[in-house]
């Protein structure tokens, strides 16, 4: 009866549906790994960073990019549910929006956790050597999970806003694009001046900087606090937005 139990059932459902959708598995797992290989082997040789090997610099960025792909999938799956008949059944069974949407988000977090593990494993294999103690790892994973959760809720909102699943995928373009004008793949000071203002102050940069600082044992400054602030702030927007959009959609 409770939302939590329903959420668990629906998260299990989403994970199962992802596993049975080959495209989804490729997007969620293979694409991030491929992207990392592309960055490291195609572009890496040309990029100068202060972290020694480029793979060490870029691995956290790839984790972030990967979260964007995962979250965009939430938009599509939510939209699928909203445009098909199943949402009517859920509603007529008194399974509320909280359970339906948090089921999708929980599945998204699980999907992304698997993708993160895959990216890290490949990163290790090609020379990624972080210098982090258990506390730093824990903090880094915490920030990453919070970031993934935030993006997934934004994805859910996009899914509720879009009229079709295809359009929902389009809404999430920003999530996929934002890591590029940040310090995810190249240091910001190598970008043109006019981009610095945006790159320094957009939400992805502090998340990246926190991950990199924590994993590579470099000073993080106030990045973790900024990251926390951005994520919680965006969540504070996304959650009520989802509630409003769901009601509008099913009114």
């Amino acid at each position, binding site marked *: *009866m409770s939302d939590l139990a329903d959420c668990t059932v629906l998260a299990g459902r989403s994970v199962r549906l992802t596993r049975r959708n080959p495209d989804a598995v490729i997007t969620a797992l293979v694409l991030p790994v491929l992207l990392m290989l592309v960055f490291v082997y195609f572009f890496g040789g040309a990029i100068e960073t202060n972290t020694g090997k480029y793979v060490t610099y870029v691995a956290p960025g790839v984790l972030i990019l990967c979260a964007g792909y995962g979250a965009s999938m939430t938009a599509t799956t939510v939209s699928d549910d909203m445009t*098909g008949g199943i949402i*009517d*059944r859920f509603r007529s069974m008194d399974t509320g929006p909280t359970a339906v949407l948090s089921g999708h988000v929980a599945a998204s977090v699980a999907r992304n956790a698997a993708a993160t593990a895959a990216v890290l494993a490949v990163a290790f294999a090609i020379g990624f050597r972080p210098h982090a103690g258990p506390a730093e790892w824990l903090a880094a994973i915490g920030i990453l999970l919070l970031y993934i959760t935030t993006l997934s809720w934004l994805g859910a909102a996009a899914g509720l806003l879009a009229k079709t699943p295809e359009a929902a995928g389009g809404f999430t373009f920003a999530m996929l694009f934002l890591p590029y004008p940040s310090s995810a793949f190249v240091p910001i000071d190598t970008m043109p001046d006019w981009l610095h203002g945006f790159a320094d102050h957009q939400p992805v940069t502090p998340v990246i900087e926190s991950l990199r600082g924590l994993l590579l044992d470099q000073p993080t400054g106030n990045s973790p606090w900024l990251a926390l602030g951005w994520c919680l702030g965006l969540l504070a927007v996304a959650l009520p937005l989802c509630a409003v959009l769901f009601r509008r959609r099913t009114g």
Partner: protein
Amino acid sequence: MHPAAEADWAIETRGLSKAYGSVHVLAGLDLRVRRGSVFALLGPNGAGKTTTVRILATLTRADAGQAVVAGHDVTAARSRVRRAISLTGQYAALDEEQTGEENLRMMARLRGHSRSAARNRATELLERFALTEAGRRRVSTYSGGMRRRLDIAAGLVTDPQVVFLDEPTTGLDPRSRRTMWETIGSLTRAGVTVFLTTQYLEEADRLADHVAVLDGGRVRAEGTPEELKKTVAAQRLDLTMTGRSAYAELAGQLGERALHRAPEELVLGVATDGSAAHVRTLLDELDPTRAQVAHFSLHSATLDDVFLELTHE
């Protein structure tokens, strides 16, 4: 609450109205559905059938009027209504990429069954709907009829008191339609109230204890299929005229008396009790020169006649 009334009616609505923009889909709908009966809401496309079902199943709010389902108001006690009903809409509410069994287990879990209870319930329902074999396959491999059966089964994971079926056989082939009729029949044997919508008169005739004809957002007629047929005429005499002018002349003469008009085929239908004497009298009256009627035929009134009579422009 009124215990007596509650025992009688599974669904009761008063003055339900709903408009989308300037389109009045429902314009004061009054319905009563007896507990344990099969009720068919019959109407052409766009008559407001789906809107009615959505309001009764708590998915859409009416603009005005009241609806009580299984003893609870659909607006004030939405959750209680939801616990007492199941809805099978026009579009299968199933996950294509889950197996039949997984779909049922999921629904049962969402309805609060434990993991093992959900598994048992799924097995039971698959067996009851002749889907045991198919239960292990993904729904994407199912035929239209199997999908509908599974969809109905999914609504039955917690013995609902009222089952809503929105056009349960639309798009099914004749054999699957027949199977679906048996399925629906078996629901009422378990004491469930079935509220179905259909555009097929044969279906309403076959299944329903009580039929309401909906058109333009209002009930145009209601009663048992038999009662409705009687409102038209027990029998209909169809006259095939010899030509256009003969047709036009008789059509003018009959006016409102013509129950059936088919100008293309030059056929006009009038009410009769079907006795030889009455048919002879009618023929003499309508064709005194014996030159204008080419053929005649007798028809038992069908719900089609009622329907066309009530919903024609």
